């Protein structure tokens, strides 16, 4: 059902720009929504996806050499979803994410330095070393993390949307979650509440076909997730999550409608993670051929190929793009390495708002 | 002369089977020795004797089942062997040594004590009130020597009971707690006692301590013995010996019920057909079509039966279960089958079954539909090789030619003996039932 024709895309984007100039949008909505469907725009999408890809590839190296620890859930293969959806969101909109959220944070504009420093557990990390890979936050960018309880972010997102509505704004809250979350009660409680109260909420289900090691069909009696979401009385549809332009178009259409007061919308982005659930796993639950087949639909490669075909990208540009991205990530790693540690004396800080306090 | 009897090894045990003797006549035994292996309904247990002496006779042969309390062997205690340590842990826990550690004559020795001490050392230890298990042995192989006991620390004097505040006050006021009499619970010295002592400077003799109350352990209530021995034995055997496999299928009864309603029109109430008659007939006919499930497992082989004698599981009003045979169920016309069934059930419940009916059904049917359940997966009655379970007739959505509609359905299950048949045979059988019920007029 994904509408990928250039015409639809263009329409959606123009409409979004228009609505983006409402109360929230006047403050120069971040980059993408305002940019034209030009080579520059495609290049920007490509660069954002590549940044996530290269960032996470570096995470693999750093994890393997024990520089970063903990659970690290990689987004490689799913970049088109975060990047595509974020094109439709303005600066004042809110984002609630999952524990596989490096991509969402970076697409949201959280600096790679701050994310990398958080992976290092440093004081300059976006959660001051108290969160780690699964708990990235950036209040200024209305990026509300970073929730490692599957579906735990959904009620929160409904509340953020409720607050925005009660305060009379036209902001939209976007909540990312996976197909696993769709099985949790919190998804269904939230879907019902949001539809009942017509909250300005965009639900983006990143269906990567596996809840950890359990395939969609082994987890859901009915695997048509969009259809089930629609049963709550909200517009819901499925989009090719490997195609950033398709995701962008779908998100534009949804956000525009949510912003216009039509209540929550649901997008199921069908995607795939190329790597293990967490950093490494034996991958006993997926066939190698299946992984390879999906890799053939690599979203980064896909966009690059399309741009080459259209004559919008050549080898030199691509090389420079990659070099630039790698340079940015090098800087992020260096700055994380050099950053100070949080003092142990501050262990109990931020438990409550009381200065320096405990309990 | 003492007797070794069949012990009670559980509240619900009424009899036991002797599996094996571990002693023979003439052999000497000591109280606590394991002398036999006994099988109960639950498990096989090694049992001990409670007398010492010489086995003069074994009164029960292995393989024999006898009630609890039956003499199984006689023990001549006149020729008791010299005392030797019990080979087994005593059944009841040994009493804890009294707190004052006075020597207790005849206190049984622990293995450790025996192994590493001499009588002299033990005597010394008892005199000094020393628990040998706490003494480090410096002799060869950890043996406790006389010197070890002589140098072992004796029990320290009982600790004064005084509250933390009383201790702190006593120290700051220079009062010796040892001379104080506590007025608190159990003679505990409290702050006021110290203050009083500090005033009159007349320390008094401490009163003897009252013993600390010991918690009383309640004995767990024993469960009432069950009266299901026969069923228990049979079902236990079935589950132990028969490798069950289970199949289930949902049967659409729309045709059968419509036909039955049609047949019942104009019939007097007493002669009306009920669904179970159709179901039983279908089962009987299916058993004829798939003879691999109709018969008995005897001497490691399946023996097919001549004719179908359906065992009908009937729950008895006083509890329990019986499964008398309904003969010729496959050939009897439905109205006769109905009558025979009514007669059989009422006689079963009234305890008036004929001997022939209680033996040798060839295939049993259990119908728990009237109890409201949807499906029943039963346990096969040995030596039969299959059991059919019928659930409640319920209305359910079914798809017919792509359209949803609601039909009466029943879940028919099959428990079958995998030694005698395979899943494919069972499937054939259930399919046969299903097919038969689609053509009720042929039943």
């Amino acid at each position, binding site marked *: 059902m994904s509408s990928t024709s250039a015409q639809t895309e263009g329409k959606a984007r123009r409409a979004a720009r228009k609505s983006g100039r409402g109360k929230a949008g006047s403050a120069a909505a971040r980059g993408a929504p305002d940019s034209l469907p030009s080579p520059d725009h495609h290049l920007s999408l490509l660069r954002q996806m590549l940044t996530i890809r290269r960032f996470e590839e570096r995470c693999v190296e750093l994890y393997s050499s024990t520089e970063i620890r903990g659970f690290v859930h990689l987004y490689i293969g799913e970049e088109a979803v975060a990047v595509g959806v974020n094109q439709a969101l303005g600066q004042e909109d809110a984002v609630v994410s999952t524990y596989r959220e490096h991509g969402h944070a970076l697409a949201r504009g959280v600096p790679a330095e701050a994310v990398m420093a958080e992976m290092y557990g440093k004081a300059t990390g976006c959660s001051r070393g108290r969160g780690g890979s699964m708990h990235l936050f950036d209040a200024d960018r209305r990026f509300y993390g970073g*929730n490692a309880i599957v579906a735990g972010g959904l009620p929160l997102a409904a509340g953020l949307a409720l607050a925005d509505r009660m305060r009379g704004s036209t902001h939209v809250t976007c909540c990312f979650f996976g197909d696993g979350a769709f099985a949790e009660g919190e998804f269904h409680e939230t879907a019902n509440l949001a539809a009942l109260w017509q909250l300005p909420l965009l639900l983006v289900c990143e269906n990567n076909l596996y809840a950890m090691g359990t395939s969609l069909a082994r987890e859901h009696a009915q695997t048509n997730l969009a259809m089930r979401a629609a049963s709550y009385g909200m517009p819901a549809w499925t989009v090719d999550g490997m195609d950033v332009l398709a995701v962008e178009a779908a998100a534009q259409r949804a956000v525009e409608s949510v912003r216009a007061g039509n209540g929550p919308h649901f997008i199921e982005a069908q995607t795939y993670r190329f790597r293990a659930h967490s950093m490494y796993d034996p991958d006993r639950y997926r066939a190698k051929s299946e992984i390879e087949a999906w890799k053939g639909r690599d979203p980064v490669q896909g966009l690059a190929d399309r741009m080459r075909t259209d004559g919008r990208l050549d080898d030199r540009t691509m090389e420079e793009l990659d070099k630039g991205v790698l340079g940015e990530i090098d800087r992020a790693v260096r700055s994380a390495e050099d950053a100070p540690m949080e003092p142990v004396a501050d262990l109990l*800080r931020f438990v409550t708002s009381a200065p320096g306090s405990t309990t | 002369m003492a007797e070794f009897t069949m012990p009670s090894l559980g509240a619900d045990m009424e009899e036991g089977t002797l599996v094996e003797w571990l002693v023979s006549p003439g052999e000497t035994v000591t109280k606590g020795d394991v002398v036999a292996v006994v099988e109960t309904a639950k498990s096989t247990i090694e049992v001990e004797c409670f007398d010492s002496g010489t086995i003069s006779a074994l009164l029960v042969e292995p393989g024999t089942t006898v009630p609890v309390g039956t003499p199984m062997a006689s023990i001549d205690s006149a020729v008791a062997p010299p005392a030797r340590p019990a080979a087994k842990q005593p059944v009841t826990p040994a009493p804890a040594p009294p707190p004052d550690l006075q020597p207790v004559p005849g206190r049984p020795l622990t293995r450790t004590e025996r192994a590493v001490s001499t009588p002299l050392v033990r005597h010394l230890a008892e005199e000094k009130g020393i628990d040998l298990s706490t003494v480090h042995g410096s002799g060869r192989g950890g043996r406790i020597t006389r010197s070890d006991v002589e140098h072992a620390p004796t029990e320290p004097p009982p600790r004064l009971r005084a509250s933390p505040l009383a201790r702190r006050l006593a120290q700051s006021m220079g009062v010796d707690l040892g001379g104080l009499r506590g007025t608190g619970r159990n003679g505990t010295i409290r702050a006021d006692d110290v203050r009083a002592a500090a005033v009159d400077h007349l320390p008094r003799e401490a009163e003897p301590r009252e013993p600390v109350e010991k918690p009383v352990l309640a004995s767990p209530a024993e469960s009432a013995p069950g009266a299901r021995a026969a069923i228990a034995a049979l079902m236990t055997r079935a589950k132990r010996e028969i490798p069950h496999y289970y199949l289930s299928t949902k049967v659409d009864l729309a045709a059968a019920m419509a036909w039955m309603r049609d047949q019942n029109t104009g019939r007097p109430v007493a002669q009306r057909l009920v669904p179970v008659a159709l179901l039983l007939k279908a089962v009987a006919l299916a058993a004829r079509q798939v003879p691999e499930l109709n018969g008995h497992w005897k001497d490691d082989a399946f023996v097919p039966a001549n004719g179908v004698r359906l065992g009908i599981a009937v729950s008895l009003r006083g509890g329990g279960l019986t499964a008398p045979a309904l003969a010729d169920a496959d050939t009897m016309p439905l109205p006769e089958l109905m009558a025979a069934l009514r007669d059989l059930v009422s006689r079963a419940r009234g305890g008036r079954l004929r001997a022939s009916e209680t033996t040798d059904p060839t295939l049993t049917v259990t119908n728990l539909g009237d109890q409201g359940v949807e499906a029943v997966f039963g346990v096969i009655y040995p030596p039969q090789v299959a059991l059919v379970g019928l659930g409640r007739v319920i209305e359910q959505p079914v798809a017919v030619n792509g359209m949803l509609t609601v039909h009466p359905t029943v879940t028919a299950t099959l428990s079958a003996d995998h030694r005698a048949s395979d899943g494919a045979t069972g499937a054939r059988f259930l399919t046969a039932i299903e097919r038969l019920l689609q053509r009720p007029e042929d039943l």
Partner: protein
Amino acid sequence: MSTRRSSAGAPPPTTYREALREGLREAMHEDERVFLMGEDVGNYGGCFGVSLGLLEEFGPERIRDTPLSESGFVGAGIGAALGGMRPVVEIMTVNFSLLAMDQILNNAATLLHMSGGQLGVPVVIRMTTGAGRQLGAQHSHSLEGWYAHIPGIRVLAPATVDDARHMLAAALADPDPVLIFEHGSLYNAEGVLDGTIEAVDLDTAAVRRPGTDVSVITYGGSLPKAMAAADVLAGEGISAEVVDLRTLRPLDDATIMASVCRTHRAVIIDEAWRSGSLAAEISSRITEQAFYELDAPVERVCSAEVPIPYARQLEEAALPQVATIADAVRRTVS
């Protein structure tokens, strides 16, 4: 523990329920960011009648009936607090709050720290707790001690009409999550509001009755029982000091220890189960901080370790009662 104003007068008695409602009304009037949400808080007037009439006064936007989805609407309350509102979320009973425990623990109590201080969660969650009304095991438990285990949240147990009236305002002023436990047996309790009190603090315990022989430390629904026991004991010449904890987290160690240092004996009354209870925590702290002041072992009177039964005589036997409190005090001073 309270700020007083000089005016006086003798107002008529008010119920704990009315005092809570007055607190809510005042908060809604003073701050338009404040709203109430929960199951049946609107049309029904609140499961225990606390919010009766508020829908008419403030409208359905601010008095929001929610679906029966504790995790969903408690989480939404937390999200709304993140989004700049001051939600008051009502959960019918503490037993139901277990369905929202993920949101309370993993989000409300944790977000500030996990985000390195970026995301404060100024949500207030009210719920009924406790037994004594023959409501059976799934409506009667006292699990506030579980919540008091969690760093990052404040746990309140108003036991008097004054605290019922004024604690909400203080809770809403707190930048962090606050849980308020209202004991079900208190809703109909009457008291005369102290007209001189304008505000209460949430940091200190209160000595509700001074005494010299023993400190009876309690909170919430057990306070009236402790006070009654103190009356009985006074007739026997035993002077019991009754300490109302008011705030279960963070505990006011100073007030507790000051009392124990005066009386040298402590009896803790806690309607929760004894094992791993708040009573255990307090007893432990007394041992840590006032060991050398103790002239007797610390006693605890808690609920029997049984799911609270329905039948009256069984329920009564399961709970701390005036007689069992008095007995514990007698053991301690004897």
